[in-house]
């Protein structure tokens, strides 16, 4: 391709509207008591990068519409698009997605959206992931992506949940870590621990980050996703530990719910 014919193509792709399109539910997976994964067929899906999200739009019989954003859990290598949704009590959209949606149902979606909170194996270097609750979802897309591609670069996942049965993707992450010695997974359970639990049982703090995250001199790419208070504290502590703020990418949710 010559420079002259590259220019209009770039301009056109930059302005391409992210159109609403139908997404059909092909599979529903119960991840935890309050979290389900929706595996969707999107006919015209253009592909995505790990960490990106989609907007979804629901329409009621009377024409009322509601929109929300959800992170993509599946890696780009999979044909179907998986969203993992946590039921927010008093929410408007998430209780519908978690409790009402059935196999074969269709709703509208557009995406992928977001170009900053993104990691691919082309990034190289160590990868440091820190998650709170359903904040693990976009990070899981990164883990699944590196797993699918057989990438062996070092990665750590520090994952805070309230209790063991609220750990999303627990078996899959354990299986991944068993197959990949370069993947280090550390869980902390903040509210309730099973008998014999030998892991952490407190909120993520400085010493936990210091011992699980790669040191600043190794220049890890850092992704932090979870509730606002967790993300604020973790990002601040990582800066105090000497990490360059520009290497720390964050996504926060709440307290708005959805």
């Amino acid at each position, binding site marked *: 391709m010559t420079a002259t014919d590259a220019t209009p193509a770039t301009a056109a792709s930059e302005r391409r509207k*992210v159109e609403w399109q139908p997404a059909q539910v092909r599979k529903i997976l119960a991840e935890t008591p309050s979290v389900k994964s929706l595996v969707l067929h999107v006919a015209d899906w253009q592909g995505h990068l790990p960490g990106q999200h989609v907007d979804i739009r629901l329409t009621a019989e009377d024409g009322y519409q509601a929109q929300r*954003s959800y992170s993509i859990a599946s890696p780009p290598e999979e044909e179907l698009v998986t969203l993992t949704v946590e039921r927010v009590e008093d929410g*408007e959209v998430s209780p519908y997605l978690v409790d*009402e949606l059935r196999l074969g149902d269709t*709703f509208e979606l557009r995406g992928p959206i977001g170009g*900053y909170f993104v990691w691919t194996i082309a990034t190289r270097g160590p990868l440091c992931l820190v998650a709170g609750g359903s904040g693990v979802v976009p990070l899981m897309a990164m883990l699944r992506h590196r797993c699918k591609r057989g990438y062996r670069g070092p990665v750590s996942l520090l994952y805070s949940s309230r209790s063991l049965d609220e750990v999303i993707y627990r078996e899959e992450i354990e299986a991944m870590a068993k197959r990949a010695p370069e993947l280090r997974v550390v869980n902390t359970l903040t509210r309730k621990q099973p008998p014999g639990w030998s892991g952490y049982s407190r909120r993520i703090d400085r010493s936990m980050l210091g011992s699980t995250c790669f040191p600043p001199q190794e220049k890890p790419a850092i992704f932090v996703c979870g509730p606002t208070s967790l993300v604020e504290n973790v990002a601040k502590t990582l*800066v105090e530990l000497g990490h360059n*703020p*520009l290497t720390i990418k*964050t996504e926060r949710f709440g307290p708005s719910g959805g």
Partner: protein
Amino acid sequence: MSERIVSRGFTSRRQGQTVKGRLPPGQYVTSGFPILSAGPTPQTKAEDWTFGLELKGSMLGEWNFAEFAALPQTTLTTDIHCVTKWSKFDTAWRGVTFDDLLKAAGLEEAPTPYVMAHCDGGYTTNLPTEDLVDGQAMIATLYDGSPILPAHGGPARLLVPHLYFWKSAKWVRSLSFMEHDEPGFWEQLGYHNYGDPWKEQRYDGD
């Protein structure tokens, strides 16, 4: 768009008649104040903060926090709309309007049609100057009567409430005047260049 897809069993839980005409399309009302930013919150102290108006590498006006506090202060109570779908009604801000900043710098009008806001943490966002004048925008230092918390953009954030809230840049340190429009941080990453919530200009091409 093709035929409307109706979700069986989905009904509105939140919106009443009271918000009709006040809530842009695709938004919902929240009473909380969600925080969204791309990286760690900069911890700039008020005494270390300065704010400047810049044109072609030279400063048209520069103020430290005390000097800034001595400029005419305006209170603005307004609705705000985030591209991530939440809107918050009746938020109260206090700060210095763009008009008063121009005056304080001895300018009768904005010297160029566009500005780029520059912030701690490297964040930028671009705006037409015509969207900042006539009381439409301010550099706010107080929210709800108190200093703006760092996570919400303190010591000072730009406030341009008629556009999606990413345009109201947190931790703002300067406005650079530009002859020609250039995309800022989110505007380079697929978000709309202008961001009018009433036209639902969320993403590029909307």
